[in-house]
């Protein structure tokens, strides 16, 4: 039996379309996402097939920096799910991509909950970037930029307690 609050990450499959639709159709969840909310499971299925599954394959390049994004269904807010998912994702991606040096994420200036997720997951706040993204065709938004670089959060030898 896993501990309360345990989160695991796995790859998407086409069978996840219904579950994906549940959050991808919720305006509260997709408020700060570039795309409009989905209204039909076919949109969710197309997104998985055309965008998510190809994305999961090795792309033949080795970028030193990557960008992280996350969405959680409304029913699971307020319990640390996103924070644990982000921490798990950061650990996994730095392990799987030895060439990765920097992981970054942006959060809307009006989304303090998402900013707290990144702070609690150990990301460093770097600054406010003005008019950085366009959301759903509306005027552009200011965002806060966060990063986690390889080596962040690692316990340095001097900080390890020794017991005599």
């Amino acid at each position, binding site marked *: 039996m896993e501990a309360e609050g345990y989160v695991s990450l796995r790859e998407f499959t086409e069978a996840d379309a219904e579950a994906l639709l549940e959050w991808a159709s919720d305006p509260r969840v997709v408020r700060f996402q570039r795309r409009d909310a989905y209204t039909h499971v076919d949109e969710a299925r197309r997104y998985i097939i055309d965008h998510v599954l190809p994305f999961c394959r090795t792309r033949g390049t080795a970028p030193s920096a990557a960008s992280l994004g996350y969405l959680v269904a409304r029913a699971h807010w307020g319990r640390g799910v996103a924070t644990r998912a982000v921490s798990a994702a950061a650990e996994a991606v730095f392990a799987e991509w030895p060439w990765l040096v920097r992981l970054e994420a942006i959060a809307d200036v009006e989304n303090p909950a998402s900013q707290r997720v990144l702070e609690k997951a150990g990301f460093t706040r*770097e600054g406010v970037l*003005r008019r*950085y993204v366009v959301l759903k065709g509306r005027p*552009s938004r200011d965002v806060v930029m966060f*990063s986690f670089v*390889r080596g962040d959060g690692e316990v340095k030898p001097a900080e390890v307690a020794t017991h005599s």
Partner: protein
Amino acid sequence: MEVTLRRFDLSDVDAMMAWASDPEAAAFCRWEPYESTEHLLAFIRDTVLPHPWFRAICLAGDSRPVGAVSLVPTADACRGELGYVLARAHWGKGVATAATKRALTTVFGEVPGLERVEAFVDVDNPASQRVLEKAGFRREGLLRRHYWHKGRVRDLVIYSFISSDLLLG
């Protein structure tokens, strides 16, 4: 310092070699210095001429280019990335600042949907940081390990100039 900006022409290749072949001018640029006009000609033909926004920097009253300034599209239509390079003979005279200021007065009108011009400068390039500050950019923060440049991972300073900044004069 007065400058004008114009589109490049294949015939600019020799003037362009002055900075494109210079390792010092190219030190903080993404590209390696050019060794032959043949490769530079291909660059003008394949990248510069079809580019959405790439301009030659000319000193007032002189039609020969002394550098280049460009705006590169990003993942979002609202923001473009500004870059510039200047022949070393014209450093320290305010040319890059003047070219940047002139670019800012033009791009918001010429590039559809543009609201933000951003620029990334190496932490070890204070001269270029001053160019942007004098041109009215705002320093937004330090992006750690942001860029793998010529064999090393670099911290970059990010600057921006948004369309409403034009009203600040």
